[in-house]
C-alpha cells in the first residue's frame, strides 16, 4: 500500500470515529444538566468558529474581512437568510479588494 493511501485510510478512521461515537448513545438519557450542556454547544461552537478565524478570512486584509462580515451581520439581523448573506459578503469583499487594487 502506498504511503498516501495508508495516510488517507488512517485519517478517515480517526476523523470518523469521533463523529460516530456520540450517535451510539442516542437512546441513553442524560441528566438535565448534561442535556443543557449539549444544547449550548451550537452557539458556543459558532462563536469559536467565527472568532478569531473570520477576521483572517481574507489573507492580510482584516478590515475587508470585517466589512464583508458586517454585511452578513446587518443583512441577517434585518432580513435573515443565508444565501443573500453569503453572496452579498462575497461581493462586498470582491469590491473591497478591487478598490484596494491588490491581489488581482
Amino acid at each position, binding site marked *: 500500500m502506498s504511503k498516501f493511501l495508508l495516510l488517507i485510510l488512517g485519517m478517515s478512521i480517526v476523523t470518523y470515529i469521533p463523529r460516530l461515537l456520540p*450517535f451510539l448513545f442516542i437512546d441513553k438519557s442524560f441528566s438535565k444538566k448534561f442535556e443543557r450542556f449539549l444544547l449550548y454547544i451550537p452557539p458556543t461552537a459558532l462563536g*469559536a468558529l467565527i472568532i478569531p*478565524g473570520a477576521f483572517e478570512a481574507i489573507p492580510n486584509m482584516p478590515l475587508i474581512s470585517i466589512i464583508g462580515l458586517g454585511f452578513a*451581520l446587518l443583512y441577517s439581523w434585518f432580513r435573515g437568510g443565508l444565501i443573500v448573506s453569503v453572496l452579498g459578503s462575497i461581493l462586498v469583499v470582491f469590491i473591497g479588494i478591487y478598490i484596494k487594487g491588490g491581489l488581482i
Partner: protein
Amino acid sequence: MEKSLKEIKEGMASGLPIVIGYFPIAMAFGILSKTVGLTLNESVLFSLLVFAGASQFMALNLISLGVGVGEIILTTLLVNFRHFLMSASISRKIKKEFKRWLSLIAFGITDEVFSVASFKKGTLNKNFMLSLQLVTYLSWVIGTGFGFLIGNILPTILKNSMGIALYAMFVAILVPEAKKSKEILILSLLSGLINLSLKFINILPKGWNIIISIILASSVGLLLFKKGEKNHE
C-alpha cells in the same frame, strides 16, 4: 412520498451556502495536493474518505514538511475531535427512528453541516440530513477533482473573495438566534473571546483551542443561566 420530497428539497436548499463555500476551498485542496505529489485518485480519495477540510490542508502541509504518517494521523485525531462535541449535541436533535442511517449521517458531520442543522427548527429527519450532507459532500469531492485537473482558473480576486463565504454563513446563522436570545448572544461571544485569548496564549495542541472554548463557554452557561431555567419551570 410528497413529504420526503419536501424534506429532501429543504435539505438541498439549506446546503447551498455550504456548497458555495466548499467548492473553491476544495479546488484549492486539489491544486495543492498535486504540488505535494498526490495523484488525482489519491487527491479525490482524500476528500471522499476524510471529508474534513482543515485537517486535509494540514496533512498536505505536514507531508511537504516530511512529517511521518503516524504523526499526521495523530494530529488529525486531535484536530477533528471537536466533531465529537458536535455529534453529541446534534444526536439529541435527531429523530430516533432513523437509527439505521445514523452511521451514514455521522460521516458527514462537518462544522458547516453541524451549524446549519443544529439551528434548524424542530427535530432533524433523515431526508433533510442526508440530502444536506450529500450536496455538501459532492461539492467537496467534485471541487477537489476539478481543482486537481483544471488548476488555477478562478481569478485570484474571486478566489480570495470567496474565502469569506463560510464565515459569512456562520454569522448569518448565529445573528438571528442571538437577536432572539440573550443566552445565545452571551455564550457565543464568550466562546469567541475564550478562543481568541487561547490563540494568544498559544499553548494547546492544534485544534484544541476551539474544543476548550466550547466546553468552557457551555459550562459557564450551565452556571449562568440556571436561575433563568428554574423561573421558567
